[in-house]
């Protein structure tokens, strides 16, 4: 019986392929893409303001609402934050990846890779929670800053309107630190992967040809590691764009895209506006992914 089925399938590779591919594709296309498509349709409906009901008629008025100053502000604030987080993550991730890939002894390297990967998979929520403790006014960071007599510097930083706030936890600086922390592993691993692929012989050749270590770093290593940085930035950028847990957890009062979407669909019941708003990050990410593919980032994933 099994033998015959096996032979039957062997002679019909397309059927065999369809049987393998069917279940995962049906699931992903029907459930996932279907839901995404449904969301897209909802973004063309609108909310009747007086009744609070969703009117299922085609309109672009919901999208027009996105261009109101308040919503444009949200987009701008979120994109700037995502870009800043990405840059900071790349700066912190590079030395650690570089050391791990090129200088650590094999034994040490195994442990470093595990130390880098565990935070990537471990609870994101708990990692956000840790910062609620750290950034609290009476918490460890304030204690440490006071110990170093830097409290003057902190209140000076918090006095800026764009990045400051009433306390570290409530300010964009606090949120920035949390984002940099939670997405850091997503930046380290792709950079590490791309650095690992740089053959040692290439570095030796560069040295033999008279390049100083810094020159080798700048002209050989950095260009070759760049796709890794771009690959990492896909995650840091996208994850920051859509996150609402960290801002809500810290109690940040300024809206970010994720938070806005969350509150539009939740308390306001305005699914069309929430749907239209998610199209923002989707479009930004698709453009980003296309550019990233150009830059060879997919090989470093």
């Amino acid at each position, binding site marked *: 019986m099994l033998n015959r*089925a*096996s032979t039957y399938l062997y002679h019909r590779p397309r059927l065999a*392929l369809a049987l*393998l*591919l*069917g*279940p*995962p594709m049906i699931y*992903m296309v029907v*459930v*996932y893409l279907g*839901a*995404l498509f*449904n*969301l897209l349709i909802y973004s063309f409906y609108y909310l009747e303001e007086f009744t609070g009901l969703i009117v299922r008629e085609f309109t672009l008025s919901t999208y027009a609402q996105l261009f109101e100053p308040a919503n444009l502000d949200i987009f701008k604030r979120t994109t700037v934050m995502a870009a800043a987080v990405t840059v900071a993550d790349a700066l*912190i991730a590079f*030395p*650690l990846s570089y*050391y*791990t890939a*090129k*200088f650590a*002894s*094999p034994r040490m390297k195994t442990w*470093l890779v*595990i130390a*880098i*990967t*565990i*935070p990537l*998979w*471990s*609870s994101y*929520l*708990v990692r*956000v929670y*840790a*910062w609620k403790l*750290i950034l609290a006014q*009476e*918490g460890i960071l304030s204690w440490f800053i006071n110990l170093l007599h830097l409290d003057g510097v902190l209140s000076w930083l918090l006095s800026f309107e764009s990045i400051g706030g009433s306390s570290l936890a409530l300010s964009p600086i606090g949120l920035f630190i949390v984002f940099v*922390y939670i997405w850091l592993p997503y930046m*380290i691993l792709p950079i590490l992967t791309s650095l690992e692929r740089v053959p*040692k012989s290439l570095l*030796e050749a560069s040295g033999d040809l008279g390049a100083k*270590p810094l020159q080798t770093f700048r002209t050989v290593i950095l260009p070759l590691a760049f796709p890794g940085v771009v690959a990492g930035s896909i995650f840091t950028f*996208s994850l920051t*764009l*859509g*996150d*609402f*847990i960290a801002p*809500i957890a810290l*109690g940040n009062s300024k809206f970010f895209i994720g938070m806005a979407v969350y509150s539009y*669909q939740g308390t306001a019941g305005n*699914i069309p506006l929430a*749907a239209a708003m*998610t199209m923002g990050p*989707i479009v930004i*990410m698709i453009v980003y992914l296309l550019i990233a593919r150009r830059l060879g980032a997919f090989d470093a994933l």
Partner: protein
Amino acid sequence: MRSNSFGPKASWGLKLAALGGLLFLHVPILIIFLYTLTPDETTYTFPLPGITFKWFGIALQREDLWRALTLSLKVAAVATIAALILGTLAAAAVYRSNFFGREAISFLLILPIALPGIVTGIALRTALGGFDIPFSFWTIVIGHATFCVVVVYNNVLARFRRMQGSQIEASMDLGANSFQTFRYVIFPNIATALLAGGMLAFALSFDEVIVTTFTAGQDTTLPIWIFSQLTRPRDRPVTNVVAMFVMLITFVPIFLAQRLSAQSSDTEGETK
């Protein structure tokens, strides 16, 4: 050269920067562990005003926590099984045939983790609402499976690519049918990849919160419980204990998965 370093040794600047990055990754979690011992119920005062172990006992007796934990474990188990089946099938299809749209499949599978979680969440919620499907255990599982599939897929596909195609041919030549080949040749080869992928999928599902907030309705998973404590802290010390517990319970599968993948790539390195 014994080590894989080249030219001069790492400079002090590089070492310090690397160490700094490493500490930044890990110290915050240790601070939670520290706070499980605080006797202070209402603030996060540091240095701790004292040391107590009573919160562990109190957390153990909380009914709501046990319910949330049970639900999270069940969801993670079912989502992992679904991801194992779907991910392996997709990986096998992509590995064995060269068909049009292969790239598109990888792209489609990676989409749920490349797009912000809130997109998946709100899309599923809107779809469920549109079709009047009530929230249940299964709606949570459906949400989790979307992003767990890619983890298994990546692990298994990577293993397939390292596998020798000749082994499969030999098995077929010796008269095994494709099911026997799967059972005796392919499965033993991909077993550790399945284990690693499955454990990572489990860890991912166990502490997922973003998609879950949209698909859970009234059900409370452990991460939803923690999230509610983040916005309206009522049981700070108990939350610390729960946070530490979640960290430790996910640590085990992640650590094992890492060791498994590291071992299989080590042996690959030796044969080269």
